[in-house]
């Protein structure tokens, strides 16, 4: 099985994004989750998946 490479679609983004179900494109984005949800509401709440985006995930310690 191939892993899912989110680097191309998320590179250079920050804040909160909604990705399409196939993870290929950004549906909407916002500086905050509240802003993103407002935008999704205006778009009729399409299917997708929400995440926040860090510039660099290598800093995660857990």
């Amino acid at each position, binding site marked *: *099985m*191939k*892993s*899912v*490479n*989110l*680097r191309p679609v*998320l*590179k*250079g983004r920050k804040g*909160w994004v*909604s990705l399409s179900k196939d993870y290929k494109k950004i549906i909407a984005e916002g500086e*905050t*989750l*509240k802003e993103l*949800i407002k935008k*999704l*509401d205006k778009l009729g*709440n399409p*299917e*997708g*998946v*929400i*995440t*926040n*985006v*860090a*510039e*660099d*995930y*290598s*800093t*995660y*310690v*857990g």
Partner: protein
Amino acid sequence: MSANKKGNNLQPPIVVPYKTFPGSGAVLWPVVEIRIKRASFSIPQPIFALVDSGASNSILHPFIAETLGYDLKKLGTPFKGTGVGGSHDVWVLPDMVEVNLSGYQFVAKFEVINNPRLLWPCILGQDTIFSFARIDFYKYKNFFELRFRSDIH
């Protein structure tokens, strides 16, 4: 109980490919999609959740908690939580949050770290996903498997 007997009490596997994120090179992250709600509050789409065997408790991003209707300022004085990432103010949410992962549902008591820069919308730790499912990591094959317990589903 033998390992075989335990294995018979599990639902069919959910196979999830690892994901790579910007800035972390070829690091493979075990991330699932979950739907999350609390009473009349919900997030309009699933959110990413890191499956973290090193996390004893499960954590929500403060923005997610606020969207679920929690006013963090009214949750009282947070306690100081310490992890390998440092020390943060932490609130324990007063009630249960509903989680749906690929059709399997469970309720969980989450903690919220007062850190808007938390890298993940949600972290599922030992007290939730690892208590409700058997998880087998096949990093060398780029995927992991979750098998929910039959006795609770």
